[in-house]
């Protein structure tokens, strides 16, 4: 029943490792997003895909690479993890005019780099 599901919920890893976070939505939405929420709860856009096409790519280190195999999935791969990457990463989706319909968020992935 979950509309936007992310896995894993928690991820603890060492500096220098490579990790992936997966996101799937069953709402039939055409646009998906990755946001990063820092320790002060600020949500910042990282990437957005519309029907598998990258439409937003904010100033994010090249170590972050999104992949959208189809419009229901958006994964995030992170290479050479750094301490500063520790945060909660949220996947979200929307349909049509996001200004009117809003986003549906997943429950987040808490990434801790040690």
């Amino acid at each position, binding site marked *: 029943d979950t509309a*936007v599901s992310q896995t894993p919920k928690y991820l603890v890893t060492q500096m220098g490792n490579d990790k992936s976070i997966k996101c799937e939505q069953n709402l039939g939405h055409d646009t998906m997003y990755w946001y990063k929420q820092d320790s002060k*709860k*600020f949500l910042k856009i990282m990437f957005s895909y*519309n029907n598998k096409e990258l*439409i937003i790519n904010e100033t994010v280190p090249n170590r972050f690479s999104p992949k959208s195999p189809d419009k229901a999935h958006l994964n995030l791969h992170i290479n050479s993890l750094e301490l500063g990457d520790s945060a909660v990463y949220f996947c979200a989706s929307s349909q049509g005019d*996001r*200004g009117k319909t*809003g986003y549906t*968020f997943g429950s*987040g992935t808490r990434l801790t780099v040690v």
Partner: protein
Amino acid sequence: TQLLEQSPQFLSIQEGENLTVYCNSSSVFSSLQWYRQEPGEGPVLLVTVVTGGEVKKLKRLTFQFGDARKDSSLHITAAQPGDTGLYLCAGAPRQAGTALIFGKGTTLSVSS
């Protein structure tokens, strides 16, 4: 760069009190949205306001969009412990192909 300033950052009140949270910007947005986030969960959409001057009510919550579509407010009447959470405003830029811009949030704590 469009920014949304949200205030206050923290609010701690007693059950039954009223409160208002503000969201301000120097930019015009096509719409303003309010979300509520609980610990360990993602933000959940409460309301969208689209027209300048629009007022929407959701039980004890009243949302208003400024006439110039640059600011919004959330007013809660007779707050209850169940209202505790992080409230986020988000603006939709007029430019197509852009994502929602979020304010930094207001952490509300209502004690009984």
